[in-house]
């Protein structure tokens, strides 16, 4: 309808892919920070904090990311909070990723053998020192393969930012399709670009898992 696929369209798609990467980094950093707090809160000494964190994880893991996106982008303005598509997508992904990373990291912290905790306690280290100097350095090694595996989920989930009008890779494809109307060809190219982003990360996570010599704890993957 509007001519045929040319180099400009491909450049536009690549720009979209770049925004997909930017959004993934935002989600990983934001979700990582909040997720770390969630992980610590899940094993906090205070019962109230533990229950609150478990409630957060249960609620978010029981809600589709798409609904969270709609809630932040359409729901917040309805109660008087204005938000841009990029901010809505970043906030939604951060909230979502934090619940999953929090659980992965809680598992990693808890799988540091108990004698390590006891030894640290026996050396009269405070709770903070125990965590920072004994447990976390070991937990990070355990957490790395599943975290890298989850990055693949993050990259794929950024595609849902397209529904709030943020122009990342999937939305770029939709826009081009609106002028060319060659959906199968265009979405095939979009799929190949996503594959090019995700596959190296998948390979890396599998290599890390094999080196760790442990069966993967959490390979579950939404969407």
């Amino acid at each position, binding site marked *: 309808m509007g001519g045929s696929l040319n180099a400009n369209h491909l450049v536009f798609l690549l720009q979209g892919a770049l925004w997909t990467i930017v959004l993934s980094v935002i989600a990983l950093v934001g979700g990582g920070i909040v997720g770390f707090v969630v992980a610590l809160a899940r094993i906090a000494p205070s019962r109230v904090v533990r229950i609150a964190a478990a409630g957060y994880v*249960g*609620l978010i*893991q*029981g*809600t*589709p*990311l*798409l*609904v*969270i996106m*709609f*809630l932040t982008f*359409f*729901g*917040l*303005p*309805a*109660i*008087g909070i204005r938000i841009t598509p990029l901010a809505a997508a970043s906030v939604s992904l951060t909230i979502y990723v934090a619940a999953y990373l929090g659980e992965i990291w809680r598992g990693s912290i808890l799988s540091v053998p108990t004698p390590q905790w006891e030894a640290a306690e026996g050396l009269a280290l405070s709770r903070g020192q125990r965590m920072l100097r004994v447990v976390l350095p070991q937990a990070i090694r355990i957490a790395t393969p599943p975290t890298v595996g989850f990055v*693949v989920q993050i990259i*794929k*989930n950024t*595609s*849902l930012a*397209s*529904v709030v009008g943020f122009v990342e890779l*999937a939305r770029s*494809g939709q826009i081009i399709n609106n002028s060319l109307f060659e*959906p*199968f060809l265009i*979405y*095939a190219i*979009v*799929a190949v670009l*996503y*594959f090019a982003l*995700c*596959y190296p990360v*998948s390979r890396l996570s599998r290599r890390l898992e094999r080196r760790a010599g442990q*069966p993967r704890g959490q*390979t*579950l*993957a*939404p*969407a």
Partner: protein
Amino acid sequence: MITLDFPAIWERWPSLLDGAVLTLQLAAVATVCGGIVGILGAVARRSGNPVATRIAGVYVEAIRNTPLLVQIFLVYFGLATLGLKLSAVFVAGLALTINVGAYTTEIVRAGFESIHRSQIEAGEGLALSKAQIYRHVILLPALERVYPALTSQFVLLMLASSVTSQISAEELTAVANYIQSDTYRAFETYITVAVLYVLLSLVMRAGFFGLGFLLFPRRRRLGTPL
């Protein structure tokens, strides 16, 4: 001053119920069909036939490294390009099946890998036929072992079915979009729908937990937690 009006949304409970039912139906179809695809895929991957192993491997990698949204568009427009006019709900079920089939393949394969060689040798020692060994020594114990991982995957699938609203399958999220455009109460609508999804996932988890007792009674006797 903004006032929240939840009852305005709750009035729409008949459409919300319809949407929730379709969400569960999509999840059920994709769970059953995707489960079968996954078992076949895992059997293909350990078959030793290089062609079958390769095809299953490419299928799993292609699906696991691309977003569901793009897969849905590809199936939807791909079938249309072939001249097949199918309903959005059918396409949604098909796309979800293809998607979850790949994840199920990986999970079941992990189950197969957890079966020790000595178990199969013991089966041979008891003069079981090849088919009997496959069924009683490999397949069922493998499924039993990965049952918790499988069921979590199927709950995630139910949540992911919200994406099919993008090709206007009238499931729960699509109903929500309609209600919010009609009432201009986006906040209340999506909060309500989020709560409904949480309830649906709790219902599914409880269902799978009960089903586990029926399917794998041995687990209960062994006292292994699900």
